């Protein structure tokens, strides 16, 4: 309730005719209030913003190409190579930066596809109910019965190594969880009075779903997207670590970890920095995801009210 009210207030403010400077001031004030009420969430947001900036600006920021094996292997961190060079003489900093691009791309695209697919699946079958719902839930059960990493590994082994196949595998991994969550929400919403009212005045099923059910699941959808990006990034890194993710010359943090294990003692920087990048990204995304969940869940404190 608090979340929806807050969203409404922001919409009213942004929809008014106040001067841009005052609006900017309002946004800054809101950000400030968010930072005070959700310091961890704000930290997460900063980390995620840095990640996004790094990903977007990697071609301009990275001192060298991610595949340029033009230097002496295993150079320790120095002024020329702040994070050292790897076993093939590539600049680790450049690869970590380009790795952010790959991780974010895989994380965002797979989560948007996976959660959207799962959400539509869960909402429609939950609303329709009956045999369609039961049958769909058995499919969800069978997919969720498999350990996620085993399912992902099997899919990658079958599909072959490529970034697009990682996204496809992650989509199939994420969709059942989203379908289960959204179905439970749809079961509640279909009994809501305004939904019954819509049906009573003769609205067709698809219109009820589109106009009355889906909009009321958006907050949950956003939370699902946010909290699953870090999960997708970790799974991508795990697949690449096991040699079944992105092709080996793609600058993937997981693949960099694997390469780093060849010389953990002699060149720990080859292992350490991609590992740190993964940890920091997951940490930031989880903090931000938790904060967004708090903001949108009326039962939890900490909303922007």
């Amino acid at each position: 309730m608090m979340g929806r009210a807050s969203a409404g207030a922001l919409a009213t403010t942004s929809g008014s005719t106040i001067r841009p400077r005052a609006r900017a001031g309002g946004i800054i004030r809101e950000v400030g209030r968010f930072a005070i009420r959700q310091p961890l969430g704000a930290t997460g947001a900063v980390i995620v913003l840095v990640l996004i900036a790094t990903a977007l600006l990697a071609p301009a920021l990275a001192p060298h190409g991610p595949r340029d094996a033009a230097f002496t292997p295993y150079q320790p961190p120095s002024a020329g190579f702040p994070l050292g060079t790897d076993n093939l003489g590539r600049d680790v900093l450049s690869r970590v930066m380009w790795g952010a691009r790959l991780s974010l791309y895989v994380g965002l695209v797979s989560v948007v596809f996976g959660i959207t697919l799962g959400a539509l699946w869960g909402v429609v079958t939950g609303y329709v109910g009956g045999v369609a719902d039961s049958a769909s839930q058995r499919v969800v059960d069978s997919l969720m019965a498999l350990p996620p990493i085993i399912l992902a590994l099997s899919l990658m082994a079958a599909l072959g190594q490529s970034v697009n196949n990682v996204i496809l595998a992650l989509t199939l991994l994420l969709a059942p969880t989203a379908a289960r969550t959204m179905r439970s929400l749809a079961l509640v919403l279909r009994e809501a009075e305004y939904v019954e009212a819509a049906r009573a005045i003769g609205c067709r099923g698809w219109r009820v779903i589109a106009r009355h059910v889906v909009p009321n699941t958006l907050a949950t959808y956003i939370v699902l997207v946010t909290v699953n990006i870090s999960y997708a990034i970790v799974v991508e890194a795990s697949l690449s670590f096991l040699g079944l993710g992105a092709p080996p010359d793609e600058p993937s943090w997981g693949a960099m970890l694997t390469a780093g294990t060849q010389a953990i003692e002699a060149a720990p920087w080859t292992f350490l920095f991609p590992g740190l990048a993964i940890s920091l990204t997951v940490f930031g995304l989880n903090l931000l995801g938790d904060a967004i969940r708090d903001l949108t869940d009326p039962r939890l404190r900490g909303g922007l009210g």
Partner: protein
Amino acid sequence: MRRSSLLSLGMVLLFAMAVGILGARAQEKPRPGGVLAWFDYGDPGRLDVHAESPLVVQQAAAGIWRGIIQWDPDDPTKIAPDLAEKWTVSPDGKTYTFQLRKRVKWHDGQPFSSADVKASFDRLLSPDFKSPKCGASLKPIVADVEAVDASTVQFKLRFATPVFLPSLASAWCRVAARHVLEKYGDLNRPEAQIGTGPFRFKRYERGNLIEWEKNKDYFVPGLPYLDGVKQYILVGGPTQLAAAKAGKVLLWDTWPPMLKTQADELQRARGGAVEIYQWPLNTINLVYLNTTRAPFNNPDIRRAVHLAVDRQEIVQKALEGAGVPCAILDPKLVGDFALPLEEVQQLPGCRQPKDADLAEARKLVEKHYPNGIDVEIAFRAVGNYADRSQLVAAQLRKIGIRGTLRSYESAAGYAAYGKGDITMIATQDRAMDTTDPSNVFHIVYTTEAGSNYARWSDPKIDELADKALKESNRDRRKQLYWELQRHILTSPTGAIAVGWVEGWYFRDKRLMNYKPAPTAYDANTFMKVWLKEERAQ
């Protein structure tokens, strides 16, 4: 005397070093018992030693099988009797008659006889049977195999050649039981691993473990000393190194060799408990271009790749300097049969710096593909092939060839390569079966070569290789091999020699009487190896 000089001084020195370093322990009295644990670099998938070529297949059952003759376990540079007690050669050098041992039994208790030898070599030499190792070596040489009586077998050659005995002694020319071949049709399954060797095949857990147990009826009394051998299937350098550092494996004398960084790490972890040594693996590293598929059916594009591949960089970075770049033959292994490295390294593609070669390569690519080329580059996900492949892909990008790397599981990769179902292989090591200079040509470069994954055919290579095989005069033979190497190095062949692979290995000091061999296949039967103390299993 002529033959003895075939091995180079370098090779002799290496063996002398090995004997010096590793041989002192042989003076101690062998102690029976114990199980040797080591590893296979991948899952063999199939086990037919006659029909396959990966080291993992040969290694999986090396102690199970015996040949007619062998490389001497006490001195792996010499040929010694095995299932044959002795042999004679006809005056024209074209007929070899082998007297077989009597009272030898197969692991299932059936008696061994000349019929088994004939059945095995009829299979290996059949034109319809693809045998990339033993068959590929012997088919050009052997005309017929005849069982004279139960314990005598005769090989009739097409021509006299010094290459016959070394080829026959290869670990791939093993004798299988006729009744087993008749029963199963091939030697792929674990239950078909019924040999005459010092160990019996105990179990094969896919992707995990291969285990042998002592054959108490082995035809050499008192051998083997070990109760058994366990080969863990360990994929990837970090896993193999972790097992070595933890003392879970007692030996690393197999492909892939350790890199210097790994050897140093192991030395720090195990200290004086292990002996680390450097050793040539008698293995050549190649880049293959499928000459039947676009874009590599175009000789200009093949030439561009020849010019662009920086062999020195691959050896320096992926092998940490342990290798001989560019060579078709390694002087350390075959002496002066190898074209002098000074000449090799002045040739286009090998010379440094590469600026002129890269400029020419770019022009060749632009001439046919102004927008560059996209190709799928295959490699098997074993050893550090992923690293080597990335280097090759990076080098090709400089001339406008954009590669997408595709990894294959080991056995699946070999299957795809064998079927020609690839456009390019970024990196593939091929181990030699013998130390004879002819070997690499019949494994890689001739039309019928066992590992001709490029599907390359050049009548001049076939003709020169055949002439050299038949040539008994050493100097003329050397000239033929020099001409062959020059021709290959300056032609747009489908197989680019990156270089000869070397590396580091270790032996746990509890493992006694282990002698490295001149090929990757000849020191893994463990028939005379013993363990100094009981190892808790």
